[in-house]
Every structure is written in C-alpha cells, then in structure tokens.
C-alpha cells in the first residue's frame, strides 16, 4: 500500500483513477485545483469561486471515503498559464495552455506537494502510459489513440515522470472508463467530457487576451505575402498560422484560397498566402524537455506539431549550446509558432518543446 496523491478535476477520468487506487487498497489523498474564479469566468456576480467540478470532485471523494482538499492555485495559474496564454498571442504565436498547466500547477507543484505530504506517487487521469524502462520511467502514448494526451505531457520532466502514475493509459477507450465509474457507483459516470480551454468557458478567448494584452487587440493589416494589402484586422490574437477562417473578404485572392502564413507582432500584420506557400520542411524548437538522454547525433523519429495530428516522420538535431532542436520534416507541413513539437519513437515520447517562428533568434527561452 502506498500513499498516492490523486489530482481530481471532478471529471470522470480522474474520479475513476481515485476510485481504482482506493479499491486497490492504497492510501489515496484527493486534491482538486481551484485554478480560476469560476464565478468571474461565467460573469455571474457573487457566484462562488468554485465551479461545479470542484463540488463533483468532493462528492466523489466522499463516496470513496478518501480525504480530499481544494487547493487555491488562482494566482499561479493566472500568472503562469493565463499570463503565458496572453503573452504568447501577443508575440504572434499560438499557445498550448494545457501544456503550461501540466508543466506548472499540475506536475511541478503537485509533485512537490505530494512529497511534502509523504506521498509515494502522484496519479492523474491523463491518457498516457508511464512505462518502467531500463533507464527509468518512460512516457508512452495511450492505448486509445483517440484519447492519447501524451502531447500535453511532453513538458513533464523525467523526475516528475518517475513520480507520476497514469492508471488510464492502458484503457481501450473512454467507454471502458465510464463502465468502471458506473461500477464504482460514481455519480460522474455519465458526465460529459470537458471542452475547449477551461478558463474560457464560453470559448471566447480573444476578449480575455485583449484584457490582459491590449496590444494583441490593436488593429492592423491583412497583407498578401507578395506585399499587397488585402484588408484590416482587429487584433493579431485572432490568428494562427494555417488558419483559413475569419479572414473575411481577404479569404480569396481571385480564385485562390488564402490562409494565415505568418503573424508579425511587431508590425501588427497578418501575412496571408496560398496553402502551398505555408508548408515547410524545417522547424526550430526551443524550451526542449528531453525524456531520453539528450541526443548527441541527429535522430530519426516522428513528430507531432499540433495536438490533433498523426505523427510525421522527421529528423531532429539537438544543439545543447543554443538549447534549440532543428526539425527536418520528410514531407512538408505547417508550423504554427507557439505550438508544441513532440517527438516520438513509435509509442514512446522522446521529448518536446515549443515551435519557434522561422528565423527567430531566441536565447531567453531556451531549455530550462
């Protein structure tokens, strides 16, 4: 029997994790992060800071008979996740807040808390597999490719990974998890999956970014890659490289469809181009977290450049001096700066980092 801290979101996945570990006889301690003022997020004056998810998590813990705590993480979440979200847009890049959240309030802080509480492990409801390999813990894709969340865990350090447990990683699908929830008598068994970004429940992230970084909402021009001005925009935060929607009359250049090819934060310009011009075979990755010993020679692997895509073949060269990895794609793809590049050897995650804008010189945000 081990004492295990379980990060409980109030959803079915982490509830099942807590239930399974308790059933196995472990000394389970539940913790739910209060990450933002729910009442303020839904813009209801006087509403409780805790959303329904916190109440659901507490009900599940009561049902399981395990201690449960609500951890106030509003400040750190606002600074390191929401702040980074807005700052990334203001730089003309597209953030991945779920990775920042896992990296900071979840794994960095909860692993530390778990140690302080005398826990032997931290378990979460993520769909990924932690495999004990010959050189320590390895991160692998979940058995269910539709649910696999390994992309969002790529910033987890090797130390954190050694301490982590992902009991759902081997489940064939979500339905199987719901069956367990029902067997355990958990009221959340039929709860719908969470959607979108948790701190923008209405899905309108641009107003949040505007509030934090008004510069990201300043108007500017939509220009063709050849220099022609095609229109105007009201804020670079609304655009992501590869995007085709929301361009208005600038969507078409004659009978040629245009897409966002670049976001120039300094000049507040959105550069548009035909799809073919967006594709590249080269990408630069910074802030790299290796889950293997950092490779001294180029490695052939597969990479994911965004959360929802199948891995593509690539060769990655790591430069420890600059802290940057150079990615050569076998087939051209679209690189959206700010998104994560996660490297795989078949099922195993080798490491990951964040895509840099082409030609960006970056020494301040290199690997930690």
């Amino acid at each position, binding site marked *: 029997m081990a004492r295990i801290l379980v990060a409980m979101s109030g959803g079915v996945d982490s509830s099942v994790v807590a239930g399974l570990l308790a059933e196995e006889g472990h000394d389970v301690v539940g913790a739910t992060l209060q990450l933002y003022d729910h009442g303020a997020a839904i813009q209801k004056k006087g509403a409780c800071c805790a959303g329904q998810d916190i109440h659901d998590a507490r009900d599940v813990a009561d049902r399981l008979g395990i201690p449960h705590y609500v951890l106030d993480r509003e400040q750190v979440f606002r600074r390191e996740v929401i702040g980074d979200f807005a700052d990334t847009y203001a730089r003309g890049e597209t953030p991945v807040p779920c990775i920042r959240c896992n990296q900071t309030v979840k794994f960095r802080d909860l692993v530390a808390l778990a140690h302080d*509480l005398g826990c032997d492990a931290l378990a979460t409801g993520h769909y990924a597999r932690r495999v004990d390999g010959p050189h320590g813990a390895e991160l692998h894709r979940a058995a269910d490719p539709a649910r696999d969340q390994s992309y969002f865990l790529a910033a987890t350090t090797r130390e954190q990974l050694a301490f982590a447990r992902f009991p759902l990683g081997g489940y064939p699908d979500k339905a199987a998890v719901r069956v367990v929830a029902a067997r355990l008598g958990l009221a959340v068994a039929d709860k719908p999956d969470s959607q979108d970004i948790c701190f923008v429940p209405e899905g309108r992230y641009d107003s949040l970014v505007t509030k934090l970084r008004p510069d990201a909402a300043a108007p500017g021009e939509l220009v063709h890659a050849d220099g022609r001005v095609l229109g105007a925009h009201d804020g670079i935060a609304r655009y992501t490289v590869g995007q085709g929607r929301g361009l208005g009359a600038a969507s078409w250049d004659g009978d040629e469809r245009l897409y966002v090819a670049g976001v120039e934060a300094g000049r507040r310009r959105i550069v548009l181009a035909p799809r073919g011009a967006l594709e590249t075979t080269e990408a630069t990755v910074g802030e790299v977290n290796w889950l293997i010993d950092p490779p001294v020679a180029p490695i052939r692997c597969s990479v994911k450049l965004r959360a929802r895509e199948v891995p593509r073949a690539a060769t990655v060269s790591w430069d420890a001096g600059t802290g940057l990895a150079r990615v050569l794609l076998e087939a051209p793809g679209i690189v959206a700066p700010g998104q994560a590049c996660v490297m795989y050897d078949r099922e195993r995650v080798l490491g990951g980092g964040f895509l840099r804008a082409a030609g960006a010189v970056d020494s301040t945000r290199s690997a930690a």
Partner: protein
Amino acid sequence: MTTGLSLDANATEPLRPEARAAVLAALDLPGNPSSVHAEGRAARRLLEDARGAIAARFGGRAQDVVFTAGGTEANALALHGLSAGRRVLVGATEHPAVLRAAPGATLLPVRADGTIDLAALDAALAAAGPALVCLMAANNETGVLHPIADAAGLCGRYGALLHVDAVQAAGRAPLPAGADSLALSAHKLGGPKGAGALLLRPGLDPTPLIAGGGQERGRRGGTEPLPAIAGFAAAARAATDQAAARLAPIRDAIEAAIAALAPEARFPGQGAPRLPNTSAILLPGVPAETQVIALDLAGVRVSAGAACSSGKVGASHVLAAMGLGGDAACTIRMSLPWNAPEDSVERFVAAWAAMREQVTRRAA
C-alpha cells in the same frame, strides 16, 4: 472521525453534554412559542428561560436579547439595523461576517500585534459625523483581544455606537463592558449550530433584517428554533471563563515546545492579550495549506486563513493586516476545545514536528 486530535475549536466547539441534553429535551416540546395555548406557553417558557440565561451569563436585560440563526446574522443585524445615519467603521481584522455585512465601511488598521490602533480609531471618529464602530472582542485566527474598554471610551466621547463581535470571546474570556451591542454564536461556545444572539443596550432598537411574524419583539421574524436556543443557553451556562482559563497553560506549553524545537517558528499575536485557547503558528516558507493537509493526514485537525465554502485554504486578511506579508500564508491556527485532552501538548507537538521534518526533508 472520532479518533485523532481536533484542535479547531474556533471553527466550532464540540457539543457540550449539557447542551446536547437540552436540545434533546426541547425536541420533545411540541409547541410554537407564539401560540396562545398551553403548548405554546410551555414553549414560550423554555424560550424565555433561555433568554434569561443568556442575559445572566453575558450581561444585560433578558428583553434585550434577540435570538438569531447564528453569529453571522447577529452581526448583520447590528450592522444593518443600527447604522442608519451613521458612518460604519470596522477593524481590518474583523470576520467576513462583519466585513461583508458592511461593504462600504471604513477599515480601521491594527497594530503589528493585532490589536486595534486606538489613535487611528480616535482620528476616524473625530473626522466626521456620528459613527457605528464594529470591533471583535477576540480574533478568530489569532485569539488577540482588542482593547474594547478603551475603544468604548472613545466611542462614548464622540457619540458613536460600538458593536462588538463577541462570537469567539464569549465563553472563553470575560466580555468587556461598554458595548452597545454584542454578537454571540451558540456553536462557538459548545452549543448546537443554528442559534446566535444579538445583545442590545437598553433602548437600542435595530431595524429588522427579517420582519416576518414579529417574533423577538419585532426585531427578528420567524419561529424561534427552540432546540438550538435551549442548547445555546445550556452551553452558555456551562462555558465559564474559569474553565476556559485552564486551556492557557496547555496553549503556552505547545508554543514553548514548538519554539524549542523550531527556532524559526513564530506566533503572531503572542505579545498581545489573547484568548486562552488560541495560537497562530507560523512556519516560514511552508504554505499553511500544506501544513493543514499534512496534519489532517496525521489525524490532527487545525485550520488556516479564512474558511471558504469551497473548502480551500484561503489567504488570511487578518495576518496580512498585521503586516506579516508572505508569511501570512505560512500560518496555521491551533485552537483548543473546551474538552481538550490532557495529552494535547505531546500529541500536537509530535505531529507538528513530524510535519516540519517532512517538509524540510524535501527542501533539503
């Protein structure tokens, strides 16, 4: 949850056996105190006996005791009902029951030891017209006692009303004289949850928050919760200041033992007059949240900061007002119950030492 050590009396005191017996007896009384008939009269008798007992225990006349649903409502009734035409001045370390009932109030600063800054109170009273001042007799997080008699003197000089939130002090320390109204809570002195009272100086007549059927002399509508009130009265009789004083040596021994084993530990408010049962214990660099959880997992129940319905450990406005800065977030509250076991010192100090050892190990 019967095993373990509960040192969180300022959240709620364990029910006293006298109170339990009174609640059970009152549950069998069928009448409504407002009814004309014999059953009503019997209920009325019990209610008025309780009113008399509260007045006898805490001072004042029985007819000036207004029963409420608890301390929060008693404070709200005073702040809403006595503030017409008056500015409201409240201490910076007051309970949310007060702060949120007086959102437009001027906050009065406290000194580093947690006691109200009397010079600031004097200046605030001198600044403009009639005022209603609200101060707590004892602070819930530190146990620090405000110099209520001195504040009452100032209020008297400027014609201000003084409402005292005596929720934590009642039953634990002699209540200061000079207040125009006092708020009490049953469960903070070993009675049941669900009853409280506002004690008024003769002649004061607050505007009711709930008019209802005119119960409580028109000052608080709604049928009185007789079992809770009967338990309240029984607990008030049992909660003597002398009995509470026995807790001070236990509290002092805990502080001495912690100071001996952890030189970095501090006790905010220790230099001021305090309740005998309360200690704020500051362990620099260790979030109160971690401390409270680690102690709970070890079977020792304490708390920290402001209680929140979400259950999270909130930031302490009390310790912030005392100028503790970041250390405010590293302070827990240990509050001995009326029936604190003899071995509280050894058990608490052992658990606290183990907790400190665990969190220091990671830091090392």
